[in-house]
């Protein structure tokens, strides 16, 4: 048992590392895109339907590429940004880029739920578009946004295990090297249990905070 723990713990930390930074960068990339989609919608505050549909299509294309293929496509980019295509740092690049369009859609749908009347009231009070985004859209949609980000993290946990298959590091990598290639079923089972726990804890935490701040 001690031996398994010694094997699993560093991998677990690597997984946390990948999930944390991939979530962070995917939000940095995806959230502005999602806000942009809402604003440029034909009923949005900045109505630009053509640009909106171009960005929408780009997001759809990225989302339709299977993750495992996306990683291969993005190998050169990983090399440019982090200098290698192997290990936890390298995996953050494709993970972030794969999750960003997902975040964009999550943010878009959360913001679109905001009552149109409330936005109209803010406009009628003389609020500018940035003020409406920050003080109305994001604030009103915060519970949905938290649930959406939770969903994103859960997806990234799954993807990060997949990234392990082609040298991404973390729990997935361990499962492949020991559980699959060396027939160590015990290691495989421990990695699966850890992934289940990780997803469960993430989801419960997200639900808790979303519920706590929801005053609707």
């Amino acid at each position, binding site marked *: 048992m001690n031996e398994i723990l010694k094997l699993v713990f560093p991998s677990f930390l690597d997984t946390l590392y990948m999930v944390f930074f991939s979530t962070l960068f995917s939000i940095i990339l995806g959230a502005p895109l999602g806000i942009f989609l809402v604003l440029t919608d034909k009923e949005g505050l900045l109505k630009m339907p053509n640009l909106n549909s171009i960005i929408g299509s780009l997001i759809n294309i990225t989302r339709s590429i299977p993750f495992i293929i996306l990683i291969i496509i993005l190998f050169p980019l990983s090399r440019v940004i982090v200098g290698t295509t192997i290990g936890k740092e390298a995996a953050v690049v494709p993970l972030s880029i794969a999750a960003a369009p997902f975040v964009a859609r999550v943010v878009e749908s959360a913001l679109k739920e905001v009552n149109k*009347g*409330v936005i109209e*009231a*803010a*406009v009628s*009070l*003389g*609020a500018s578009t940035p003020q409406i985004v920050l003080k109305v859209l994001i604030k*009103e949609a915060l519970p949905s946004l938290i649930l959406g980000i939770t969903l994103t993290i859960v997806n990234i946990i799954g993807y990060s295990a997949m990234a392990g298959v082609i040298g991404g590091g973390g729990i997935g990598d361990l499962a492949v090297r020991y559980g699959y290639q060396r027939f160590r079923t015990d290691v495989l089972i421990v990695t699966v249990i850890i992934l289940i726990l990780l997803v469960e804890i993430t989801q419960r935490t997200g639900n808790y905070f979303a519920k706590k*701040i929801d005053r609707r």
Partner: protein
Amino acid sequence: MIQIKNLKKSYLINGKKTDALKGINLRIEKGQVFGIIGKSGAGKSTLLRCLNLLETPDDGEIIVEGRDITKFNKRELRDYRKNVSMIFQHFNLLSNSNVYKNVAFPLEIAGHKKDYIEKRVRELLKIVGLEDKENEYPSNLSGGQKQRVAIARALANNPKILLCDEATSALDPLTTKQILDLLLELNKTLGLTIVLITHEMDVVERICSNVAVMEKGEIVEEGIKEEVFKSPKSKTLKQFLQSEKGGVIYLDFKERAI
């Protein structure tokens, strides 16, 4: 104070052009409580929403204190909107912000300092009689209380004009009376010009000084309330006045069903 000249607006509905406003001319003076009445689809909501450019008119002028607001750039429009507030049928409060934050919202976006905001919010909550509710969230308030918060929010930046979009239509009769009393008091004490649209005759009778009747995108009669009501000319007003007396509620009901 507000002069509307030949205002036109049309919409494309299922590819068909529909005129909502067919050349409206109207004058609203400072300090008036001006009621615009009409049936659903008569264009009264579109007209009201043109007054703060939530709707952009296709043609015509809206001159407020000597300036044509339809020519405003974005910045001028935002400043203008701080002088012309609006309250709504469904209140449109920020649901994830408490009463205090809702009333502070227009002050924050106007860039006021924190201690001024605090002082002003307390002042406003006192005016609308909600001093003890500043930490409540809208979902815990009654309809009347929500509309009071909305009124406090609308008054925050000392507007000269208040636009009321069916502001009492979602309230029960007693609450409606209380809200109308509050609006009338604000009209008297602050000199606030009020433009309201409604389909409730009761509202017009209670607080309006002037009234305009709309039918199919046009103003069919207009003037001082007492005079207009004494000799109604339009079909709409005749029907409204009759159904008030209880005579042809059936007719009204039948029309609504269609």
